[in-house]
């Protein structure tokens, strides 16, 4: 048989079918042509996957590509970062300038991505017009243009009635309302997680209740409206418990956690390290462990990067004035692998599920799959090689990673989209979807 790419001898794991076996994967004409012990394949390109994991393409539910309106990242640079980081599809948050709050803006992102993106871009629209929390945006018309979800991420929907209406409306657009849960009256100008670190550094504290109170409110609204709610970046043990509690009421809910909340703690803020300043803030060890456990045992559906690139102009300044966010696309898989598979003994198939079937379930779309005839979106992971994080080598324009120098394993080795390599052995290949 003929193949564009032959992936030879890897451990093929496909959570969508439960497959976990040593096999070759042949890719041709953008589709998975065959999986198994393949002989007599005439391949244009062969990838030696001995010792590698071969998985369906990883999806990121939550990243900030910053376009339009920012000099900190573009759709082009952000999706190159995604390819470098092993992601075949990313959901782009709409808190841009102007925000993606209309069908025309959704279309703009789609068109821009078609000409400049290196991976699939799934646009998210805002919940409210101009992200102001005052009037609903045109959710159904944005959905028609391809918006996969709705979120005012970066700002919470403060008004309870507005949130209730959004959840009601989600039932006809059949897309999740993704909520950044934060009670700004409790955050009250806070800069970091309330605890020993804020006391020691003299930083304004953000109490954990700032997230948890809003998580509780939104879960109650989801229970009462039967709307479709997805909770972004849960970061405390109590938030996870509340989420689990609401499932008991049959709520139509899902949740994600980030690699940094499951792997890192606020101790990284020592010396006023603004690269570790993020919202929700890095928490203490107890919360980190709870978040990691929820990711491991599947209590939460997905791991999402919350990739938030910033130039040093916005980061290297007084802690109080520095922007929140971590450039995370290129460390997400390794940081999570190291914390969960190495640290907690998580099964590789469960790990892959958090980046494939999990996000697909959240979005209500067909899961990425390696079954024959599926679109050939594939992520290869090298589970062995230990390497230090080197932010200056990021494809992202944002070098703002607090993980610089950390020794991680589980690095992405190749990103294949529709049968073509967008990244191979760390080298991002320029191509158009």
């Amino acid at each position, binding site marked *: 048989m003929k193949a564009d790419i032959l992936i030879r001898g890897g451990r093929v794991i496909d959570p969508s079918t439960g497959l976990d076996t040593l096999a070759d994967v042949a890719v041709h004409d953008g589709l998975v042509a065959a999986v198994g012990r393949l002989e007599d394949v005439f391949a244009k390109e062969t990838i030696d996957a001995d010792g590698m994991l071969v998985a369906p393409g990883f999806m990121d539910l939550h990243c900030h590509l910053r376009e339009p309106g920012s000099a900190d990242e573009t759709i082009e640079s952000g999706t190159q970062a995604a390819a470098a980081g092993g992601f075949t599809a990313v959901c782009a948050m709409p808190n841009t300038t102007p925000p993606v709050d209309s069908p025309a803006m959704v279309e703009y992102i789609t068109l821009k991505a078609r000409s400049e993106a290196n991976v699939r871009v799934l646009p998210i629209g805002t919940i409210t017009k101009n992200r102001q929390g005052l009037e609903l945006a045109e959710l159904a018309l944005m959905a028609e243009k391809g918006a996969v979800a709705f979120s005012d991420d970066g700002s919470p929907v403060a008004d309870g009635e507005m949130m209730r209406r959004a959840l009601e409306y989600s039932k006809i657009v059949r897309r999740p309302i993704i909520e950044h849960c934060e009670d700004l009256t409790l955050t009250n100008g806070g800069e970091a997680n*309330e*605890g*020993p670190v*804020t*006391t*020691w*550094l*003299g*930083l*304004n*504290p953000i109490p954990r209740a700032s997230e948890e109170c809003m998580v509780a409110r939104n879960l109650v609204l989801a229970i009462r409206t039967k709307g479709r709610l997805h909770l972004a970046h849960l970061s405390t043990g109590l938030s996870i418990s509340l989420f689990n509690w609401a499932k008991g009421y049959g709520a139509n809910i899902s949740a994600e956690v980030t690699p940094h909340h499951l792997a890192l703690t606020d101790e990284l803020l020592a*010396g*006023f390290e603004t690269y570790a300043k993020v919202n929700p803030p890095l928490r203490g060890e107890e919360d980190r462990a709870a978040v990691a456990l929820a990711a491991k045992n599947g209590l939460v559906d997905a791991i999402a990067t919350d990739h938030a690139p910033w130039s040093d102009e916005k980061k*290297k*300044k*007084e*802690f*109080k*004035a*520095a922007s929140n966010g971590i450039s995370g696309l290129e460390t997400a898989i390794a940081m999570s692998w190291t914390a969960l598979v190495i640290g907690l003994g998580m099964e590789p198939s469960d790990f892959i599920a958090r980046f494939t079937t999990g996000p697909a379930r959240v979005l209500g779309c067909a899961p990425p799959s390696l079954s024959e005839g599926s679109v050939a979106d594939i992520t290869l992971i090298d589970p062995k090689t230990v390497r230090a994080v080197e932010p200056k080598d990021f494809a992202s324009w944002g070098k703002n990673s607090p993980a610089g120098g950390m020794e991680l394993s589980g690095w992405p080795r190749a990103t294949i989209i529709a049968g073509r390599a967008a990244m191979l052995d760390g080298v991002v290949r320029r191509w158009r979807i």
Partner: protein
Amino acid sequence: MAGLPYDLLSMEDLDRLQIEAVMARAAFYKRKVFAEKARMDVLAGKTVSTLFFEPSTRTRCSFELAAKYLGAEVLNVEISTSSAAKGEGLKDTGLTLQMMGVDLFVIRHDVSGAANLFASYVEPPVINGGDGMHEHPTQALLDLMRMLELMGTVEGKRIAIIGDIAHSRVAKSDCICLGKMGASVVICAPPTLMPENPEVLGAEATYDMDKALDGADVVMMLRLQLERQRAGLFPSVREYHRLYGLTPEKLEKARPGAHVMHPAPMNRGVEISNPAADGSQSQINQQVTCGVAVRMALMDMMIGEGC
């Protein structure tokens, strides 16, 4: 002689030996300047710049006189944070002054971590003159100096620090400094003005002022920013004074002859009553003199000839 770190940004930067060396040098300068009326030239030809992003005439004067008594040139720069573009103001000002030949910076800023950030930008040594809610190491050293003058040692002494602990850089630096010197520190505040994890300060924590005062050798009162009331952290000045203000009656609960201190400026009638502030046990004026001596010692040890 124990050398000092390149910058003094936090009391964490100094170990006990270094603190003792600063105390010895400060005692020497206090005698020279205030008893013998001597003026020195150990910093002749050097320029010290005080850079105040948060106004404080008292602290600026103390640093300025300390530098002048040692023969240095002094350049005072006051910048209102509202006019300074965040971040860039700090960096540009620092680099400009550095290129003009400043040998030592003193920085005061209303944002925590600003002194650390500033020190990362400029070449010359930096003394933190107070940054946000983070630290105020020279205040801790002058407080210690006065305590040593009065008691000879703080080893095993009980020091009560009472007031707005949560927002106080003085309390933090005092706790670190006194802890290193073997004192037993108790911090006292209402729950709304107590930090979340007071144990990291190495002190016993209580909400009960009587408990804090019990057996105290030194009672350190902290200034209460009145805007905390508007932020909902306490109901009224009247109630705060009743619960946490130092009066002669309250002072009787401390060890007889206990010393009363305050980093100043005081809110009289709020955290401290007039009789307590002006009584025979008050050390508040003497603290000011120690401030000049301690700052002289630090400047000499950081950029003087012998350093």
